[in-house]
């Protein structure tokens, strides 16, 4: 499964902060840890903050901490903040043909399994059982 860069960074940042909710890390700290630019991480943290998962900010030096519920929040909750919803996808050319419909059934099957997997893994499970 291919996730956009922002989605992966959102997952990294949320899990890193959720590891210790008492700890505060700046977007610069997190950017260094994952080897990405502070700018791209600051944007991701803005989205996570608007969703009520993390709190903090104010510039590169401002710290963020995790304020969500580790047992309730799943990987899918984070993915859904950055990826388009499966039902909201624009129709591709050829999708209405017989072959297009058959192919779409296979792709939907894969999406459903991926979504079920992401929805079943809470942050708590992820941090307790690193696979």
């Amino acid at each position, binding site marked *: 499964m291919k996730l956009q860069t922002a989605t992966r960074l959102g997952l990294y940042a949320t899990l890193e902060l959720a590891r210790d909710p008492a700890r505060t890390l700046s977007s610069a700290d997190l950017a260094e840890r994952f080897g990405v630019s502070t700018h791209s991480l600051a944007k991701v943290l803005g989205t996570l903050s608007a969703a009520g998962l993390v709190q903090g900010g104010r510039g590169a030096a401002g710290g963020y901490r995790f304020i969500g519920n580790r047992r309730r929040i799943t990987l899918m909750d984070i993915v859904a903040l950055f990826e388009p919803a499966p039902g909201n996808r624009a129709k591709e050319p050829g999708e209405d043909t017989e072959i297009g419909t058959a192919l779409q059934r296979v792709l939907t099957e894969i999406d*459903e399994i991926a979504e*079920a997997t992401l*929805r*079943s893994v809470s942050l708590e499970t992820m941090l307790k059982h690193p*696979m």
Partner: protein
Amino acid sequence: MVAIRPAQATDLKAISALDLRLTGSDKPAYWREMLAPERHFLVAETGKGALAGFIAGEVRAWEFGQPAAGWVFAIQVDPRTRLRGVGSALFDALAARFKEQGVTRVRTLVDRKDHLILSFFRAQGMTAGPSLQLDKELP
């Protein structure tokens, strides 16, 4: 806290009733079969002796070509006693019995739209197994 013990014929009524309440399907004969000696059928009981939940499973070898593993057939916990570790206690008790029988893997099948039960098994450290389940409506 709950006590875990093997299910008996006298528990079947409460087990069937709990299952019917949670799944909407009444299958007393199925639960009676779970009392077979080769199966593990365990109940969790509250301090007052009420049924808090149950789990059923069995060690099966070469099912679908796979070497011996402990299969979890069913688990239910009374919603009134959820979030108190009843499900985990049942799972651990069944896993301990599987280990006593010499198997090192535990396996189950889950409705992929049932996020609650999927999350429960994930929280026990389970991940996708080696098999994919396939299915077809017969013409």
